[in-house]
């Protein structure tokens, strides 16, 4: 059991939890939040693989990828929220469902 293992298993769990939220929530904002959790899991996984506690340090390539990834994720989030607003304006509901008239789901 070491740090690498702890963080990579945390990362895979975060990815799965995010995926679950993405599938479970009909509300668009909750879907976008879940996507952000998945992104956090992916970033954590990349860095946990790049991390070597003592000698060579951290692999700079995944670090650079995560750094750009964080900025891309926030701009994608802003765009997605904007799309969600447009969907709300057009359909009158902020939910994404197969059957909009199904009230108990």
């Amino acid at each position, binding site marked *: *059991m070491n*740090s690498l293992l*702890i*963080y*990579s*298993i*945390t990362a*895979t*769990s*975060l990815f*799965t*939890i*995010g*995926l*679950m939220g993405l599938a*479970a*929530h009909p509300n*668009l*904002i909750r879907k*976008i*939040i*879940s996507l*952000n*959790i998945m992104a*956090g899991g992916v970033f*954590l996984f990349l*860095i946990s*693989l*790049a991390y*070597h506690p003592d000698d*060579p340090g951290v*692999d*700079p*390539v*995944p*670090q*650079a990828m995560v*750094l*750009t990834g*964080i*900025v*891309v*994720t*926030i*701009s*994608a*989030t*802003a*765009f997605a*929220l*904007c799309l*969600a*607003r447009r969907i*709300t*304006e057009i359909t*009158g*509901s*902020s939910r994404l469902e197969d059957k909009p008239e199904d*009230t108990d*789901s």
Partner: protein
Amino acid sequence: MNLAFDLLVGLSLVWVAWRIVGSRDHFQAVVLFITFGLILSLAWTRLQSPDIAIAEAAVGAGLAGVLFMDALGGLSSSPGSPRPAVPLTLLFPCLILASIMAIAVLFVPEDFLGLIPVVHGALTDTSLEYPVTAVLLDFRAYDTWLELGVLLVAVLGVMGIRRIGSISGSRLPAPADPVGRWIIRILLPIMVLIGGYLLWLGAFAPGGAFQGGVVLAAAGVMLWQAGHPSLGLLPRLWWIVLLFCGFLSFLILAFWSLFHSGRMLAHPENKLWILGVEYAATISIATCLISLVLASPGRCRVRDN
């Protein structure tokens, strides 16, 4: 001791993520997501990536929080449905997926060094000392260039959807009360200073265009939150120049080196080139992120059922 701390951070990340997904109240989920960003930046610090921690704290807790809170106000006012947030039928496939991925993690070889030797070997070829900045601005300059393009596309997409041509007329939040004005008066200069400092550090220590740009963007959004138009004050032409200057400076560098040495984006001998591109990229990143938040539109009250 470190192991115990790692375990604590990992478990709280998973727990908070679970609470975010499982919570029925949207507002609670957004607040928990901000907490999630802060704990994640703790994890980055532990993984020896302080610059990612800064970016995560500014983006995950700051900008994302503003965006989601704003969207929450505009999109949905009612709480979610009374049934459990995550159905059991979804839980089992996800548990299986999680265990498959966890098992896959166990097979990662411990002595896997990745690209560390390659990057450290190539550091002698560049005028930058900090490897992450060298990767971003020199070795993989193409990726950074196109990444600025992605930011521009996101801004153009939001502008297109909102059917607005500039951010100068965007809706302002209510003006801040005296305490809010006071804290902004103190924090804004410090944030601008820290953003510039991070940018300057980038050549030889953790810092650089992305970290500095994100902190500057957070400062601009904070100003906007207090009821000040911030970037909206700029004439449209200047705003466009700031938006595009990072992308354009990469373009100029690419063509200059193409004519000069026959290769696109080849290493410029002069350090000033890299500095210029980095500064322009910082300004563009900050402007794009501020514009993305500022272009977030007015309220639209609709039903959420």
